[in-house]
């Protein structure tokens, strides 16, 4: 079972504080991490490998420093890493990102299963996984919350929908995007870290891939960002403080009044 997990390096935002005056994010010293939602993809890929054999290859397209994300994944138990990096890829939107990832995956060789994260926490689109499946014409299941069975030729999964779940069977090779519910990511081990440090990670540049140049980077991206705003978070609503029974009564009455005025009740 050859499994490929495309991962993305994103800015770490868990400790980011908001500047309440300007409503902007304070980004000082923000570190880069593996997209948190990709950890679930890595974990389930390792689990499938552990029970069915094979190799897990993590790939990322990004700046040379994204090498770090790949090594973290190797430390968790992935076998190989591939870095896709070239100035010409910069500025890619989801279409162009997926285009390049597909070319890289084709170069890596025979694949049975591709497992992507649900979405990246920076761009927040969730489009790259379905994009890859579409371009490679692989059967696709998105929002997968459980793998029920894997055979040599098929995979049975549960997919989260608005109404509950649905069970699908896909022939292999196939592509899944997975949600948090699917697994609990393991921590890197010391041995894993040592191995990760020693592993040779090849870098693919434009010259290594069979790509059409005008499909790359900003040029190859159909979408354009025209404007970025930082919305003000503060709403400045009314605040009641409860200190005793009387103020409790007042606060609750105030809330009910408020809800009536807003036609909530």
């Amino acid at each position, binding site marked *: 079972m050859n499994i490929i997990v495309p991962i993305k390096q994103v*800015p770490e*935002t868990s400790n980011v504080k*908001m500047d309440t005056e300007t409503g902007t*994010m304070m980004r000082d010293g923000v570190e880069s991490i593996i997209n948190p939602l990709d950890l679930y993809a890595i974990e389930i890929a390792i689990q499938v490998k552990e029970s069915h054999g094979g190799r897990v290859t993590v790939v990322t397209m990004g700046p040379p420093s994204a090498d770090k994300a790949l090594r973290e994944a190797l430390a968790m138990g992935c076998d190989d890493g591939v870095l896709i990096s070239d100035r010409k890829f910069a500025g890619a939107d*989801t*279409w162009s990102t997926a285009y390049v990832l597909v070319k890289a995956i084709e170069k890596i060789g025979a694949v049975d299963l591709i497992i992507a994260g649900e979405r990246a*926490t*920076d*761009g*927040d*689109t*969730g*489009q790259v*996984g*379905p*994009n890859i499946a*579409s*371009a490679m014409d692989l*059967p*696709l299941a*998105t929002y997968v919350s459980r793998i029920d069975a894997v055979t040599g030729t098929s995979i049975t999964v*549960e997919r989260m*929908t*608005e*109404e*509950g779940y*649905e*069970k*699908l*069977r896909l022939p292999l090779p196939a592509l899944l995007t997975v*949600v*948090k519910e699917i697994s609990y990511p393991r921590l890197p081990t010391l041995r894993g870290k040592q191995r990760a440090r020693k592993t040779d990670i090849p870098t693919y540049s434009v010259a290594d891939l069979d790509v059409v140049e005008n499909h790359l980077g900003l040029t190859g991206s*159909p*979408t*354009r*960002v*025209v*404007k*970025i*705003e*930082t*919305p003000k978070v*503060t*709403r400045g*609503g009314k*605040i*009641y*403080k*409860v200190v005793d029974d009387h103020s*409790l009564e007042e606060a*609750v*009455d*105030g*809330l*009910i009044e*408020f*809800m*009536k005025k807003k036609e*909530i*009740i």
Partner: protein
Amino acid sequence: MEYKGVWTIAEAHEGDLKAVSFELLSRGRKLADELEEELVSVLIGGKVKEERVKELIQRGADRVILVEDPLLDRFIVETYSKVLIDLIDKKKPEIILSAATVNGRTLMPHVAMRIHAGLTADCTELGIEETTRNLLQTRPAIGGNILATIKSPDSRPQMATVRPKSSRPLELDESREGVVERIEFSRDLYDDRVKHLETISGGEEDINIQESDIVVSGGKGMKKIDNFKMLSDLAHAMGGVVGASRDAVDRGWARYPQQVGLSGKTVTPNVYFAIGISGAIQHLAGMKTAETIIAINTDEDATIFQVSDFGIVGDLFDVLPLLTQKLAKEVK
């Protein structure tokens, strides 16, 4: 052939249409009016009730393109994608909007990739650029910390998924007339590789937090799972559903489909209650666009109060019982 007209993708579920199908039409109507073009609702599915199909017209569509077949009863992206691409090839719409639901967010990138079209995810605002007539698509990104406006100047159609609940359906107008165009499903578009084996209902009615007008969410401040009963009592009194912070979900007090935030769902209800939730940015990412936000928290410095329209600094175990009790009298 020139690209013309605005399409919205209707979503069917068990013979009925989902509410998002109508929300999209109010978005589409505005754009179509501005462009002075036709608004088309595209419905791909099994059999859907006649009167609901008519309702698409009564709520804004000029035309319904209907591709109905028992083989299309279940959403299977490979087939749906081929059907939609076939329609696009034949009719060349200028804009396609779908809901940012699990199926919309699967179908649209599948289609966009193959036709090399620009696609913007989970938009909360749409407009037309005056000079170019391009679609301007605005969406929150980086956990809701920025709002980005995006366009696809050179590729057609311009495609976007739109956040459910971010607009209201138009009033039903029974006098509105339009065309229902049935297009036969051609079997060579059928891709039978993926098999739908079973539908497993979420069990509790509480699961669909994205479609509810009222979401009552609890966090770590709820202390234990039994206390979540207080939230469902409150929610039910108002016809709402129960959501949760990640901390509450991780502790097993609520289920993952109920999680609101960066690694959970994004909701845009009429009213969002944050009860015993501190308001970490990852949580705010999932609920900041709610129409009205109400917070209850013991900590007056909790971030959640900054985004609240109404806040009570107090112990939820005092506030909730009294609120539920008083509410019961009001709604009766």
